[in-house]
């Protein structure tokens, strides 16, 4: 499939906008780097050599295609055909590596030999540290000091892989602050460094670039579903949204298939109106953060609000501009799932199908209960990651 030529009404325009969302709101000090990326990303990504190397690494290193698993017992329970897209089986344990493999190849072609990244749950940090080890590039990962506490195993994984993990100690000490620190680092070191953003956020072209690198997920779903059901089109695609990269990848090749319902699942935390939530579409207003205009949780005065979720990967006060547009245009349905419902759904999947999902992905699973499903429905849930990193969270939660 030639992803380059897809001209979707849900795609980005040449200015970096999805409808009213997107753009490139960055200080001048970042402009040359971001502009270089903007000028070159499509040409590089769709060059035959890049494609060849990218797909070869996805196959031989990441382990793609990931299975599209027909979840029999879940299907019986919900009275619909339910498939799990097993991104949890990717090398390093989540979809994040699809993006980092692509961006590391891009960085090499831009002549950059130092890599920085931000990370929340640590999955993107691990995926970045991994490809840096693979390519022999220097790697610094910024991580909120609060997240370093709750995702300790991932911190050590990054260190074993040879990356330096730098704590972000400002603000809520989570993903937003790690992103601020990474941006500051890039301002201070513009020349040799490439910043691998881990989700479909940031200034244009990042949201579009990351979406294209994650689009492999729905590219595979289409042919896998055809093999299994005779049609490339499910009735629903369900994915959790932190910044929105796994959802962008799972939705990508269905954006212009209006009969396919796109379901984006946000973290309600302790409840949408509890004051401890990360449900951006429910609580946010249009605003600018980390280089793009999007929906943003903020005070009346435009100060960014600290989000909360039990899941470090969903604990972000914004969403990617593409998702803001999918919400605004009603192309996607947004559902908010509480900590409790997500944890139950995670444990439930373990018991029913023998798969312990990442707490982020458990939010997507919990949304199944919220959908009015019929026996003819074919639902693909993007299982974005595995639960190994969340063992401590599961243990503390109990209930199993």
């Amino acid at each position: 499939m030639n992803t380059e030529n897809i001209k979707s009404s849900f795609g980005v325009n040449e200015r970096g906008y999805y409808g009213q969302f997107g753009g490139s709101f960055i200080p001048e000090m970042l402009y040359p780097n971001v502009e270089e990326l903007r000028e070159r990303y499509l040409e590089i990504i769709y060059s035959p050599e890049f494609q060849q190397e990218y797909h070869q690494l996805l196959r031989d290193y990441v382990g793609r295609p990931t299975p599209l698993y027909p979840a029999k017992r879940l299907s019986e329970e919900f009275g619909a055909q339910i498939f799990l897209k097993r991104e949890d089986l990717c090398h390093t344990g989540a979809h994040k590596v699809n993006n980092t493999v692509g961006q590391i190849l891009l960085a090499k072609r831009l002549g950059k030999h130092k890599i920085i990244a931000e990370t929340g749950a640590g999955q993107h940090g691990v995926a970045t540290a991994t490809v840096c080890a693979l390519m022999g590039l220097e790697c610094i990962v910024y991580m909120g000091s609060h997240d370093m506490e709750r995702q300790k195993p991932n911190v050590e994984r990054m260190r074993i892989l040879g990356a330096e993990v730098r704590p972000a100690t400002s603000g809520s000490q989570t993903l937003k602050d790690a992103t601020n620190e990474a941006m500051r680092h890039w301002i201070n070191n513009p020349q040799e460094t490439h910043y691998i953003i881990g989700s479909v956020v940031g200034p244009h072209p990042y949201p579009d670039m990351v979406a294209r690198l994650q689009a492999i997920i729905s590219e595979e779903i289409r042919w896998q579903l055809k093999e299994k059901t005779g049609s490339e089109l499910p009735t629903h695609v369900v994915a959790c949204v932190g910044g929105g990269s796994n959802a962008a990848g799972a939705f990508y090749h269905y954006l212009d298939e209006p009969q396919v319902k796109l379901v984006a699942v946000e973290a309600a935390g302790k409840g949408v109106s509890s004051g401890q939530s990360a449900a951006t579409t429910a609580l946010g207003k249009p605003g600018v953060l980390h280089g793009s205009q999007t929906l943003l949780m903020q005070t009346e005065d435009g100060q960014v609000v600290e989000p909360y979720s039990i899941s470090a990967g969903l604990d972000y006060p914004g969403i990617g501009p593409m998702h803001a547009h999918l919400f605004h245009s009603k192309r996607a349905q947004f559902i908010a799932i509480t900590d409790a419902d997500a944890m139950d759904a995670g444990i439930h999947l373990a018991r029913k199908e023998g798969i312990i999902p990442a707490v982020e992905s458990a939010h997507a699973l919990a949304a199944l209960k919220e959908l009015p499903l019929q026996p003819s429905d074919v639902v693909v849930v993007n299982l974005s990651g595995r639960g190994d990193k969340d063992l401590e969270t599961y243990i503390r939660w109990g209930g199993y």
Partner: protein
Amino acid sequence: MPVTAIQNRLDTLFQEKAENILNVYFTAGYPSLNDTLPVLKALEKGGADIIEIGLPYSDPVADGPTIQASNQKALDAGMTMKLLFEQLKDLRNEVSVPVVLMGYFNPVLQFGVERFCQKCAEVGIDGLILPDLPMYEYREFYKPIFQQYGLHNIFLISPQTSEARVREIDENSSGFIYMVSSASITGAKKGITEEQIRYFERINAMNLHNPRLIGFGISDRESFQLASRYAKGAIIGSAFINLLTGSQNLEHDIIQFVKSIKENNK
């Protein structure tokens, strides 16, 4: 070829004073919530030529730890946009030097860009520095509003800014151009290197329409004087915030600080 017909205190200053222009930055509501106006007054008394008031923001990505901390402290104390405009209500009875506001775009967007510009005009602000407002959005959506309210829009350039883009920025700026001295966030580097001087000279040779002030890493008399050789003057931020942080006697310390920078200058 000036891009606008705006004529305000900034223009008068640059017409009347050719060199050693000192612009001092501080964060609104810092060190204490109600210090905004007293700090402004003391800065003018000490001899600052331009005063830049920072609008505190939760996520100041272009700022180093010193200014980040001052932003956070001001926000924790209850600083808001509305309160700032109240504090500045009598600005022009008290202070006559040009005053510019520097801030990130989101709080301005939430306040309403037009309402913000109107308030700025009402209290007597002369220009705006919004580092994350891109040139495209400014031209497309906001330029007429800024102009209607007589506000200069001051863009940044950095050592990495290409010559073509410096020209484009020059065409779209008015008031002055904020020349970031090195590839860095605020407060990160000290002193001025040979490489920076080559950059200053390169830009000097371009004969831009707009005057330039050099900022970031200017902290004392020595760096101020050196920078002023290559531009109309320079901007001091983090070093001044550090002074405010430790001060027991604001007015006295501010006046001493500004005087120490300007000593031996005309």
